[in-house]
């Protein structure tokens, strides 16, 4: 049996609508609905893996061995199946290296494969930089419909890179009253922050104030929605303080959220995209031990892990940490008062890449976009 599949490069993906924020938000809503119904599978013995990560050592005696020499240096393979109207298997695979910036390349270079659920044959192989950034940005925006105050006016983008750029495109679809945006980059003169400022000015005339903040505290105070998507090394992590957030703030964390005031979370509504995923992170964290290979004390810095810590140490009941999917499916409540502070950790799952990848692939097929590739006319060995 002949197998052909479609290759979609980045330009093809743009033509196929990968940057369509409204459709991506809808797709994330459907993805979370299917997650809540358990119509999906992830990797690992408990089918709850974010993905299989490959890290490099801090030092090696072997010449030219890849080293862990910057934030987010890793390769990651993220296989999954998602059911419902998608009914597709596949995986996202990427390499990430902050030094890519010196080459004019994105920090991560990502590809997604869609595979036939039954035969395993490739259906599509696609550039996934924009796909991944959009689905990552669309998740908090979709969640904001349930969790943010609808009259939110001030949005803080912490880490104004690709993820928050896509998140911004999505927030602007669901929070029509945003008129002030605060940006926090690595420094006040950070190029990414300036690029983001320009992007907002060009695309969102309704935004009257764009403030580049010099401290994390400044970015977190007097705001309605915080969107964190930072890439930092452990040594450079700055601690978030709960007292910075005013009543009614909604905080989304997609990257690094370092805090030691765990008990402060008990006064907030705690929401995650997949509780089991953070339980697994915590098990891995504990298994690795209290210090790293260079003897430094290790700290976890993922919002969902703070919640798991509170549950594991019996400071709160498991039920107080809500899966976003239960809110989407109506079995748990979103925001219940204008005053409550909502903390929402979104680590991301390959399910989102598959559903959004599938939508883009369908569009590409419809529009005749992409390059047809032939795996074989007839397999050599059966």
């Amino acid at each position: 049996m002949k197998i052909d599949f479609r290759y979609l490069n980045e330009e093809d993906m743009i033509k196929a609508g990968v940057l369509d924020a409204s459709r991506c938000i809808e797709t994330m809503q459907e993805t979370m609905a299917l997650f809540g119904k358990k119509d999906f599978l992830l990797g690992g013995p408990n089918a709850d893996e974010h993905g299989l990560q490959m890290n490099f050592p801090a030092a090696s005696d072997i010449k030219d061995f890849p080293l862990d020499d910057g934030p987010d240096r890793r390769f990651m393979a993220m296989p999954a199946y998602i059911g419902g109207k998608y009914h597709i298997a596949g995986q996202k695979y990427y390499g990430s290296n902050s030094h890519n910036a010196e080459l004019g390349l994105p920090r991560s270079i990502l590809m997604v494969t869609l595979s036939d659920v039954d035969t395993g044959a490739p259906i599509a192989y696609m550039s996934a930089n924009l796909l991944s950034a959009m689905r990552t940005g669309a998740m908090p925006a979709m969640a904001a419909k349930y969790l943010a105050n609808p009259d939110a006016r001030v949005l803080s983008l912490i880490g104004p890179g690709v993820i928050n750029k896509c998140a911004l495109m999505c927030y602007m679809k669901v929070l029509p009253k945003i008129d002030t945006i605060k940006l926090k980059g690595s420094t006040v003169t950070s190029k990414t922050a300036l690029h983001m400022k320009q992007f907002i000015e060009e695309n969102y005339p309704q935004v009257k104030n764009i403030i580049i903040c010099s401290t994390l505290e400044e970015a977190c105070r007097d705001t309605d929605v915080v969107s964190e998507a930072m890439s930092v090394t452990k040594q450079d992590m700055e601690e978030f303080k709960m007292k910075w957030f005013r009543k009614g703030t909604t905080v989304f964390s997609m990257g690094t959220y370092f805090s030691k005031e765990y008990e402060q979370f008990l006064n907030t509504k705690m929401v995650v995209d997949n509780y089991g995923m953070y339980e697994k992170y915590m098990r891995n964290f504990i298994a690795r031990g209290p210090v790293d290979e260079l003897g430094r004390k290790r700290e976890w810095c993922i919002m969902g892990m703070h919640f798991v810590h509170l549950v594991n140490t019996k400071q709160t009941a498991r039920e107080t940490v809500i899966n976003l999917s239960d809110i989407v499916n109506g079995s748990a409540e979103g925001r219940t008062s204008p005053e409550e502070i909502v903390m929402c950790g979104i680590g991301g799952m390959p399910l989102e890449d598959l559903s959004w990848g599938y939508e883009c692939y369908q569009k590409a097929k419809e529009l005749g976009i992409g390059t047809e590739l032939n795996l074989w006319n007839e397999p050599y060995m059966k």
Partner: protein
Amino acid sequence: MVLSLFVRGGFIMSNQAIDFLFLSEEDMIQAGVKDMPACIEAMEEVIKCLNAGDYVMGGENHNSHGSQVSFPKVSPFPNMPKDEGDDRRFMAMPAYIGGPFDLMGMKWYGSNMANKEKGLPRSILTVMLNDKDTGAPLCLMSANLLSAYRTGAIPGVGIKYLANPDAAVCGICGPGVMGKTSLAAILATCPNITTVKVKGRGKASLDAFVAYVKEAYPQLTEVRAVDTVEELVRDCDIVSFANSGGTDPSTYPFVKSEWIKPGAVLVGLSCFDMDSIDMRNHCTLVVDNLQLYEAWEEEFPYPSFGANNIIGSKFTDMAHDGIIKKSDIYDLGDIIYGKKPGRISKEQIFVYSVGGMPVEDVAWGKICYENAKRLGLGTKLRLWNHPDMC
């Protein structure tokens, strides 16, 4: 993609365009994916890299075989694939391998026995190769033959070091793709083989296998199918278990030591079983990479054998039970480097477990990719002229 080289040289390239190569199965054949002696040579380099620690695989322990999507036995969703005991799964297997290879890659496949009815192989595999620094794709390749040949070649490396040089009789359990490629590796390593026996479950596949072997290797004097595991194992110098099997060890081919010819090597590419005490008393146990089995022990806690159907997981279970010591399990790399003895007598029996690792796919993939570039094969694909967001 040569960007990283330029950076080491101190230049910054302004060209952000990324191109990569697609190699279909036909391209891979032209690129030499079926060159078994070259593949065995490459796999020997891989085993050395593994022993020297010059590699990284996934997971906390850096030794994960891969991330597997398994299907449930029952599901309320009619479209959800079901696990019907037929080895159905998807698997993503990332790895970096150093030494002469020095690059990153990942194998991805889906596996379903029902593919056969559609005229497709049970598994459909692709391998991606990447720049180890930028992560940029270098090559996407059809990996059915790649995977089959590297899987066969690893036993070839073991047999080179473990088998008696006058080995004449070879048995293959499972007349499938792995059976063919492991036979190819055995014949490439042991020039004195005259007889091949094969055991399978279906007459049609057995007949086809016998016909294939007779045609491909006219130097053989005898090629025949046998009915039982005992007939397969008796009088054999080398037995390769290349059958497929599920998670229940009671369904695996079971071998008794009294059947095994003194001096034989039993290769477990897939599942077979022996009594623990019997195996300890009569066999030397060798694995392709001990750390892989330790990683499996973490992923599938004791008893690991079954959940993972490779005999090496039985070795770690035996160590867990105190039947053997961990140090009784030999790493093939230790034998190649002379840190541990290989064969010390003509009568010594080896059980050699082959787990399969993505480092092997990346290594053989790299060589095929280099050949393809040299020969101008494949389809050049552009990822982007300039990344849209950076």
